[in-house]
């Protein structure tokens, strides 16, 4: 990947952002907004909102996130193996894959992957 592709990514991103920003900004100039209390309150099926919406979230999301981060490293290590499997030793990758499946099996047996 050279300069051309790096600049290409920036140009694509800039074009997308300009189009997006224009679509968000131009209506703001043209249309006058009338704020009412009902319009500005968060949607809760037509009721008045109860309590805060910034609730605490369950620890289970954290467990999924940690599992993802760990196994994504394994997936990232598999990328060079997939490109050059005929040139390199397979053992480290097989050990990583085996331990990943073992850990998923352990998680599943312990019931951590069950959604409560």
């Amino acid at each position, binding site marked *: 990947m050279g300069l*051309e*592709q790096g600049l290409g990514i920036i140009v694509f991103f800039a074009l997308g952002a300009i189009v*997006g920003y224009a679509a968000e900004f131009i209506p703001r100039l043209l249309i006058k907004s009338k704020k009412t209390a009902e319009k500005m309150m*968060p949607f809760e099926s037509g009721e008045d909102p109860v309590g805060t919406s910034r*609730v605490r979230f369950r620890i289970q*999301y954290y467990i999924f996130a940690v599992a993802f981060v760990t196994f994504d490293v394994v997936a990232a290590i598999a990328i060079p193996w*997939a490109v050059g499997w005929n040139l390199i030793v397979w053992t480290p990758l097989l050990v990583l894959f085996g331990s990943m499946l073992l850990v998923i099996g352990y998680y599943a047996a312990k019931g951590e992957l069950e959604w409560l």
Partner: protein
Amino acid sequence: MTGDFLSLASVVGLVSGNLILRLIAVAIVAFIVVSIGSLIEIYIERKFWARIMSRYGPTEVGRYGSLQLFADAIKFISKEVFTPELADRTIYDIVPVLAVATSFVVLVAIPFDYAVSSLFPSSFHPSSFVISNFDPSLLVAFGFFAMEPVLVLFGGWAGGSKYTLIGGFRSAAQLISYEIPLVLSFLSVVALTRSLNLFQIIEVQSASWPFLILELPAFVLFLIAMLAELERTPFDLTEADSELVAGWNTEYGGSKFLLVYLSEYIRAFAGSAIITCLFLGGWVGPAPIPGLVWIFAKTIVVFTVLVWIRAAYPRVRIDQMLNLGWKVLVPSSVVWLVLTPYVANFAVVHHLLTL
């Protein structure tokens, strides 16, 4: 020679000489392709889906309801823009723009520019216009593809409503559960061609059997993981309209909703195009029809299959979905990835694959 200063050849020469101009031209071409693609996609989504369910879909505006999409877009843009009181203003405003921009960057890696430039044989030489032919193009595509969960989580948090927050958390759990099978199943195509360049993967396929046949298990796994990544109906828990109103984008209205919607269809188009390039041979097809038509038509056909799946299957529950991801897709994609070198050797020996 000064007389034809504004002729096509000189414009082409100017554009191919200047790097930035050339990149902007490529980006505009990609934007036109993806806009036409999204319009066709939304029309298919509404009309084909409706016909499967014995409804009519849009009929009133234009012939067969074909102008309905433009009417919707005008309506979205002409609505007032406001930010709910409890929303986190900066993040709330920036998420739709970033969603469109990051989904659009995925198209850098997809060889639509080659397909477009090969329509102009002599004056517009393909190699001067093509930027998608670089080495880890698949990684770039999936890198920007994987930005979405962060944006969805931010958008859900910033919306300031309970529905958006639950939608955002669900989306994060869902997308990170399906990221690993997605990566491992496209890696088995990479292991077959030993290249991370979509361009080369298509060129290998043009000389051998399409990978849909050689890599059928990987195709099935990739399709399921891609459905989950695109948040389409068997897995659309983030938007589950019967539970969460509209999921993480409940609080977005007017032109912001238009942007969220647009980014979803750009992602769907890019995802279908990646499936096309990896498994269905990209622009390769019988000769008189140009490559652009082939890659575009294949992408639309893949998207139609996604709509068909959407119409045919009910939404899964979140525990079923996570079970499918962790206990079925991850182990089977690992097993198939380790088996792929043997498949590759077998295919090379039997002349099914030419490297």
